[in-house]
């Protein structure tokens, strides 16, 4: 799976992403594979990763990782190259605590976020980055921050302005010349959700690589599951000619097959 997608992106699998801001727009229900791809790619490179899991728990990512031949558990607990923020639980706790009882322990960043202040969440990500920087395990020491997925916060009631400021600050923090890290943000998009579309449109301008996964326009097909568009935009430090790539894919249990539009083996 990793090889095929790397080939499609036409990238060197040993040093990608390098100081990039990648956004993944999911307009299809079968498009989570890209988040797993990036997480496992970074893990293969033995790179420090901060993962903000908002849509699934660690167990889910770990079991997918095992299918792809990676042990995320040992990366988190033994090698300490992965910091997994169980944001799904923190977030649900923050909703419960804000309505029924107040937690007296460490401040929950999501309570602040719901109030419109993203500073605490930023600080916790920054603290994770600093912890990783002390270890310096990988060949590539530039860290990667992955958020899966941002639209959960939006649909749970965080103000879009607050999210924009959060992403903007995170972008500044991670991709700064000091850290030279990469930021990967995934979003679920729905045409009817105007706020998500607005956020996506702004992120497109902010990003350096945009990947969008959609269902087939012609409807459901057993042998072609969807389409993937990738676009390279201006990088962080210099202008770049826009390059677009387009492919169709079919997902299987552990793998993905990519083919040029209309070139599926089932069609030919």
């Amino acid at each position, binding site marked *: 799976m990793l090889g095929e997608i790397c080939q499609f992106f036409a990238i060197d699998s040993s040093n990608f992403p390098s100081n990039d801001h990648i956004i993944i727009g999911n307009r299809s229900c079968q498009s989570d594979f890209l988040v797993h791809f990036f997480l496992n790619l970074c893990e293969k490179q033995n790179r420090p990763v901060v993962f903000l899991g908002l849509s699934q728990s660690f167990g889910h990512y770990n079991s997918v990782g095992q299918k792809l031949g990676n042990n995320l558990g040992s990366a988190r607990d033994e090698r300490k190259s992965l910091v997994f923020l169980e944001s799904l639980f923190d977030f649900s706790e923050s909703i419960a605590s804000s309505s029924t009882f107040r937690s007296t322990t460490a401040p929950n960043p999501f309570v602040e976020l719901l109030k419109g202040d993203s500073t605490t969440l930023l600080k916790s990500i920054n603290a994770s980055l600093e912890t990783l920087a002390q270890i310096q395990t990988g060949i590539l020491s530039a860290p990667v921050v992955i958020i899966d997925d941002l639209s959960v916060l939006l649909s749970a009631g965080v103000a879009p302005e607050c999210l924009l400021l959060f992403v903007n600050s995170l972008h500044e923090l991670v991709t700064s010349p000091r850290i030279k890290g990469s930021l990967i943000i995934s979003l679920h998009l729905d045409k009817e959700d105007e706020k998500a579309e607005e956020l996506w*449109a702004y992120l497109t301008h902010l990003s350096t690589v945009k990947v969008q996964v959609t269902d087939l326009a012609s409807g459901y097909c057993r042998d072609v599951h969807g389409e993937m568009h990738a676009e390279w935009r201006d990088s962080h430090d210099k202008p770049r000619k826009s390059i677009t790539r387009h492919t169709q894919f079919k997902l299987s249990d552990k793998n993905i097959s990519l083919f040029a539009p209309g070139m599926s083996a089932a069609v030919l």
Partner: protein
Amino acid sequence: MLQDLLTGVEKTSLILVTDNALCPGRHLLLNWIDHLGTRCDKLILVCFERHPDFFKNWLPLDVQKKMTLIDGRKTADIGRTNVDLMADVTSEVSRTGGSVGVVIDSVSMLLLVKSTPITCSFLHNIAAGSQVTQVVALLHRDVHDQNTCRLLEHVAPTVVEMASTGGAQYTCCIRHCRPTGKVLKSREYFYTDDSFHIYNFGSATSQDGSSQHKPQDDLTSKLPFNLSLTDAEKDARSKVKLPYLKDGSGDSEASSGRIFYQPDDVDDFDEEDPDDDLDI
């Protein structure tokens, strides 16, 4: 007109470059900074989306020396510090004696976080400063609704709307309101080279015309007979003198023409003037 605006032949206080994700305007903005930098004594660049190095690395050294960079991304909460940002820019303007150019990449963040009227007045106030030669701001059309974009376009006397791109060629629509009040509209194209410098400006209307006629040309080429004319044939056709066409040379002959009438033998020719009873 784009070239005149870029080089400063056409004077304007505020330029709004509007773009969308398919046709980004950041490369045009880079060129604008370059040209504005050579005209002004000082250049203030406010960045919200890219690191200041993005602009700095691309620009020539003499422009780099004139630049003051304000990193809008540094302020973790732009929402609160909009007033400070405004104060930053105005204090930078007042600090210099000569002319100042201000470039903002982009105002979309401000629009999203603060209200539209505040952003409009922010732009207007900077552009109204006596020392400010020109303010250039980038706006992402696809991020905001139509009303917001229109409101901002009303504030700016000049709007460059990036329309389409195909590789290195860009097409843009320009609406320019001169200080005298005359409004000029045009559709123009330009090319960028490998290092993103703009060259080869031109009016896009003729190009669009030729591209619209292309399908017709394809149709006529498949016909068994010839419908189109070559340039030589067109030239020959234009030289043909049409028989009833009144041109300068034919007039004298017409005035000298007479009617000779020879009556038949049996013709009952009336000697009297038929119009005798008329008072003429």
